[in-house]
């Protein structure tokens, strides 16, 4: 089945220790998104890729970076995690761009704990 896969599902890191979360998709979608979702809050968009074009949200901290080496994979790098970065990180994809309806397909998420 076509899907969005996130690894690992649970990640524990230490304060200040770089961490990388990964996302892969078999949907062949050209748009990939990263969201941060804190407990009992709405998902908040960090950035997205349209093919290789990176689009950062204005309020995304510099601590968060992303890489998309190919269509299938996208990575979220947190350079120096702080306690406030503990959250669920959701990857999503979309096969449409522009004015077309933007249904997004989400992975199961990675829950990040910062000690």
């Amino acid at each position, binding site marked *: 089945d076509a899907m969005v896969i996130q690894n690992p599902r649970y990640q524990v890191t230490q304060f200040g220790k770089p961490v990388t979360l990964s996302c892969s998709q078999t949907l062949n979608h050209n748009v990939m998104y990263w969201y941060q979702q804190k407990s009992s809050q709405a998902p908040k*968009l960090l950035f997205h890729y349209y093919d290789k074009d990176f689009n950062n949200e204005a309020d995304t901290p510099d601590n968060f970076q992303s890489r998309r080496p190919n269509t299938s994979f996208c990575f979220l790098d947190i350079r120096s995690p702080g306690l406030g970065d503990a959250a669920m990180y959701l990857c999503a994809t979309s096969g449409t761009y522009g004015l077309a309806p933007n249904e997004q397909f989400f992975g199961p998420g990675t829950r990040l704990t910062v000690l």
Partner: protein
Amino acid sequence: SQQGEEDPQALSIQEGENATMNCSYKTSINNLQWYRQNSGRGLVHLILIRSNEREKHSGRLRVTLDTSKKSSSLLITASRAADTASYFCARTGGGNKLTFGTGTQLKVEL
């Protein structure tokens, strides 16, 4: 805030009852979508309603949209315990961004 607001924040009903969740937003939209999120999981797309539509059905789901009031509602009929989840509305105003509402936590009790 550009987020939509949803009410109620939490809703507890008995199995078989209907559940209604409301979403309000502040800016114009191209379409509005509803997603479900089971505890600790990713979001699942439920239904999309375009700005020129007023009502849409999908199985036990009914969504309405009133662009003059900038509001939408999601009705789940004959609820089941498996419907227990958080429900989010998300608006698309243009481009490719979804802006999510604050969510409604639904609990369906046996």
